[in-house]
């Protein structure tokens, strides 16, 4: 591969971070130009896990390609599935039963909890704190158990399908989540005791990797990353889908724009997710788990764009249909991770190498989502 971070003189020192470095959470490769400990430039080298899901989807039917989306941002699998299902339902003008809307929203918020827990676990680990990892994985385990009971899968769900759900939820679904939330609300306060007030953790995060509101908008950042910079961008508020317009919850917005603000946004979002779930669990209506949708789906000619809020930000599905085929003519997944990563070189210019790790941890990148 041609080097793109140019070597200007012999004193320039290029350091490769990744692709197998543990703090890159997968196969992200960064070439950084440094002088001593100070970072002069960062270049992300991508593609180590590029599978060209968009090309594969062109050869699969509308029911099949959704399975691919679970394998992009695997921590937001339900939300990715939902984005595709919504795009197809809107194109076909199918209205799903209320029960489906409830269950989909519940699953999305549970996914957000599980994803933020994993981020919190890894964020602590990246900065040298091992205990959070075990604590958060204990909590996350219970959510994946619920998912396993619902759809037989713990990571790649494929449970939300065009028209509804793959099958009905098992008995005791709501009660199980209620019990879980009661336990988790107690342990969530431990998260604060363990990491939020920790002097070393605060020192490594406060004032590090600052991103202003204007820059967040210019780089296309979304999700907690943008909201920590004061940019309101929650798709659940801007383009409500499923049950979100009927629920009361806050969009968490902070203005500091540093790693610590991003940390606080996600912690606060967990409390909001619990609040959302509590509003939904008692009211799941009776009814069908699917609307009538043909086995072989064909979309009318045209283009359809659907956004949802995943744990990382705005995930968009852009489908182009030629009106004849049972598979999309072209499909594009707008992944939140790629845009958030785009801001990384800017955020870390002039920082120390240790700060780069802290900033990367606070961006909560999932590499298969960036590479696709």
């Amino acid at each position, binding site marked *: 591969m041609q080097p*793109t971070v140019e070597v200007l003189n012999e004193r320039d020192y290029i350091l490769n971070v990744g692709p197998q470095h543990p703090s890159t959470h997968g196969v992200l490769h960064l070439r950084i130009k440094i002088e001593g400990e100070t970072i002069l430039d960062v270049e992300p080298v991508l593609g180590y896990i590029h599978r060209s899901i968009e090309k594969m989807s062109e*050869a699969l039917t509308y029911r099949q390609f959704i399975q691919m989306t679970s394998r992009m941002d695997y921590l937001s699998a339900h939300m990715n599935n939902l984005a595709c299902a919504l795009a197809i339902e809107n194109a076909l003008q199918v209205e799903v039963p209320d029960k489906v809307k409830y269950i989909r929203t519940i699953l999305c918020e549970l996914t957000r909890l599980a994803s933020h827990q994993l981020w919190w676990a890894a964020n602590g680990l990246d900065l040298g704190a091992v205990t959070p990892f075990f604590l958060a994985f204990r909590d996350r385990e219970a959510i994946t158990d619920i998912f396993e009971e619902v759809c037989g899968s713990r990571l790649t769900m494929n449970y939300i399908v065009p028209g509804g759900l793959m099958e009905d939820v098992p008995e005791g679904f709501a009660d199980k989540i209620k019990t879980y939330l009661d336990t988790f609300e107690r342990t969530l306060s431990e998260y604060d005791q363990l990491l939020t007030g920790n002097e070393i953790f605060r020192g490594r995060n406060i004032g590090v990797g600052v991103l202003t509101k204007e820059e967040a908008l210019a780089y296309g950042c979304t999700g907690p990353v943008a909201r920590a910079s004061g940019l309101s961008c929650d798709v659940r508020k801007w383009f409500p889908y499923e049950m979100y317009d009927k629920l009361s919850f806050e969009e968490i917005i902070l203005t500091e724009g540093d790693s610590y603000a991003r940390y606080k946004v996600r912690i606060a979002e967990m409390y909001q997710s619990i609040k959302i779930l509590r509003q939904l669990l008692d009211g799941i209506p009776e009814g069908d788990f699917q609307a009538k949708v043909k086995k072989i789906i064909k979309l009318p000619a045209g283009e359809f*764009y659907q956004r949802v809020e995943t744990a990382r930000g705005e995930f968009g599905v*852009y489908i*182009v249909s030629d009106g004849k085929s049972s598979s999309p003519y072209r499909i*594009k997944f707008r992944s939140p991770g*790629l*845009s958030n*990563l785009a801001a990384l070189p800017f955020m870390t210019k002039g920082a120390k190498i240790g700060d780069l790790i802290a900033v990367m941890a606070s961006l909560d990148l999932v590499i298969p989502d960036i590479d696709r």
Partner: protein
Amino acid sequence: MQIEELKIKLADAFPQCTFEEKSNMTTILINASDAYALIKYLKTEVNPGFDTLSCLTAIDWPDYMEVVYILFSRESKTQLIIKSKISDRNSPETKSICDLWPGAELLECEIFDLFGINFTNHPLLRRVFLGEEWIGYPLRKDYVDEINMITL
């Protein structure tokens, strides 16, 4: 500003663009040579401007290519799709919008990598996913890879 109002304004400033209402958003069709000017106009001259670049991608049609920009105005809550048509499929070229949104840099690299569309005025156009030694542009419809392709 509502879509209807915008259409009247655009018909004045860009008489060469046409409108289409095939999806849940308004689509503006324009030639690649005028696309940059139109997007800059929508971002800076229209009030309230389209300040968010939601999505940037391309489509390969049998005899031409299209670069697709999905814009969003946070103040008026209006969404737009802009499809810029590149007639020359053999050496497609259009002007980069990196100076309007620096976040477009990686997205344009992706399009260059997978479609082979050259973006002029781009700070560092490179094959960001596949690497410089990869032959062909996989998201083009005529790209064939005998071994790795998934077909039904």
